[in-house]
């Protein structure tokens, strides 16, 4: 379970997240829906450990991971994160991007996980290509594979389908939904698109001006 208690974050006099309290049960698929600038990405980054809360605390699996007194680094929170622009490292191949997330495992197990994952995402033929040699949709698939590779307890998505055309979005939404179900992870999906939110999540929370509004 992920528990947020009165979490706040301010950037230079602008309150991005304003005393938010939230409980996300294990295996839940939750969409966080709100307009641009509402603070939903900041909330996601707080959960991931990419930002520190100014007030409040975040607990994951019964352990406090973020508070003004405590900080557990992102790599120790057992999360997967799919960023808005895929954020693939340009100097690593597709396989290299995914394998970096498995670096803590023995080499044999890394490849055991890699091959079926590439297959599931439909990107086996791209394994030796570099990010600037693949399309935007393919990059999103690679980003998803990278997030799934370490079998995280929590999957975080920050508007992963931005700038993609409709057929591609449909495809990827199905892939995401399937992958999350298969992995059994808790999912938090941030988007400004109502359709995406309902397509991929069981529950939708509306967010605006740094607060949960519904």
């Amino acid at each position, binding site marked *: 379970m992920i528990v947020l208690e009165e979490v706040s974050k301010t950037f230079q006099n602008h309150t991005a997240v304003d005393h938010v309290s939230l409980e996300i049960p294990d295996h839940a698929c939750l969409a966080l829906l709100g307009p641009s600038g509402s603070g939903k990405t900041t909330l996601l980054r707080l959960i991931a450990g990419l930002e520190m809360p100014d007030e409040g605390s975040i607990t994951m699996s019964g352990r406090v991971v973020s508070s003004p007194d405590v900080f557990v*680094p992102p*790599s120790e929170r057992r999360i997967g*994160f799919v960023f808005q622009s895929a954020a693939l490292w340009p100097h*690593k191949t597709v396989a290299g991007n995914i394998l970096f*997330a498995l670096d*803590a495992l023995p080499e044999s197990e890394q490849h055991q996980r890699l091959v079926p994952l590439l297959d599931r995402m439909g990107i086996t033929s791209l394994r030796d290509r570099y990010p*600037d040699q693949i399309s935007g949709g393919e990059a999103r698939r690679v980003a998803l594979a990278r997030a799934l590779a370490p079998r995280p307890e929590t999957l975080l998505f920050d508007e992963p389908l931005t700038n993609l055309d409709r057929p591609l979005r449909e495809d990827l939404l199905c892939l995401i939904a399937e992958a999350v179900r298969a992995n059994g992870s808790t999912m938090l999906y941030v988007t400004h698109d109502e359709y995406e939110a309902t397509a991929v999540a069981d529950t939708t929370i509306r967010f605006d001006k740094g607060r949960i509004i519904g």
Partner: protein
Amino acid sequence: MAIPRSFFHMFRRTLSLEHCLYALVLGVFFLLITSPLIGLGVDLLYAALKGSLDLSTPLLLSSRRLELLAASIGLATAVALAGIVTGVLFVSLLWRVSREILVFILLALLALAAIPPYIHALTWSSLFGSLTDFLPGLPTTGWGISFWVEFMALLPLAILLTWIAFASVDHHLVEVGRVFGSDMDAFLHILLPLSAPALGAAFGLLFLICCSDYSIPSLFGADVYALDIFAQFSASGSSAVASLYALPLVLVTVLVVIASRSGIRTLAQTPDWLSVRFGTAPRFPRFFVGLQVIACILILVQILVLFSGLVFTTGNLTTFIHSVSVAQGELTYSVLIAAGVILISLPLALAAAYELKQPGLRGAVAWTLVLLPLAIPASLTGIGMILFWNAPGPSMIYPGLLMPVLVSVARFAPIAAILLFVQLRFIEPLLFDAAAVFSPGLFETWVQIRLPLHAPGFFVAAGILAVLTLGELGATLVVAPPGHGTLTMRIYNYLHYGAAGEVAGLCLMITILTLIAGACTIAVLYLLYRGPGRTVETGGKPE
């Protein structure tokens, strides 16, 4: 009063391994670059306390010194401006060349930039001397000639810096402009404004180099403020007095560099400095093409005069081989110094680059400490190094083989820090966030993600560090250990002796060395990070 728990937690977080390493590396960087200033400052304080310092003369600018300062600023401004304008015209031609040709041109420019400015001056002086036989009225001295030769000497560096400025702009933004207007409009209203901050920074660096150089103007009878500083240094024998005389020039150069710095901070994002650019070639109006042709002619003239001067003066292969064999010790030592400067400066400069990103007072202090060493004349830097390192504490370093490395680090590591700061702003921050999420450990993250992402910046900084170090004389001469000299020192010794052939041969050697080093670095980077099996790039498929 109870100390809040948060204080201890903040303190414990600050003491993490990463933070401690960062603080250590940063501390070493700032110590090394400010050690000359500390040495000079302590000496100045000591002289002032002893009462042996007359503050009035150096600090009160006479009309003569004001005129000198104004003339120096004028010359430096004109040279820097001419360099940038020519660079803009030439680099606008490189807009659509292939990666291979681009790399070749950049390597050639790097090699040319490594040749000491004084050599350019002598080559042009000989040419002008010969031309007066046919054109008796041709002036061979004065501000005009000084401007021309200084401009020619700094032109390769100006073009390199201009290329960096242009490469900093996301070409997609320019392409959008080409859709809605002419190519000339896109160039003038999109590319130039977006690259203007970086061009400003390039202007600042060229201005700095020109301001502190007196060797070229004095050869052509133009007196500059830097010469006055050294005349005072020679007359007084006091580094404290010389430091005071240098203050007005230091203030001016610091102001210019600060102005350039505010431009650096607003640079646009870009994916890759060596990215292949596709699309149709730009179509410029005739007048602009004419200007581009003039720029190319200027560069060709610069190369021709320099190389023909060097090659003809060398005379034959025997002289070249002889000059190189006699200077083997200096050659080896110079290469080792350049390698040492690069290896020490780059990791330190990377830490400093992160510090330069910090907002508020912290960033302002970092920028001040980084910019100050750039404004100090070379000889004073050398004297400051002796005053600092010859003290009882750090005395095992002086006068060892490491001193010329440290003096070049003190002078040029700030430039590397600024270059890496610029490059840092081009790296998508999400790539670091992704590394933080998926990181198996601090070491792996640095080795596999952070360092490779910084690689292009390292390459550019290494090239510029090598060029500046190979040509450095004023500070190195002061700290070179007994029994050891650099290639540049031998070149200047030969110059005085009149061994023109040997001088030319050694200058050709420097050029070859730079070309080899640059080519090797590119090859190594390519093999390490792209591999031989890479398929042909497509530049990204459309959705």
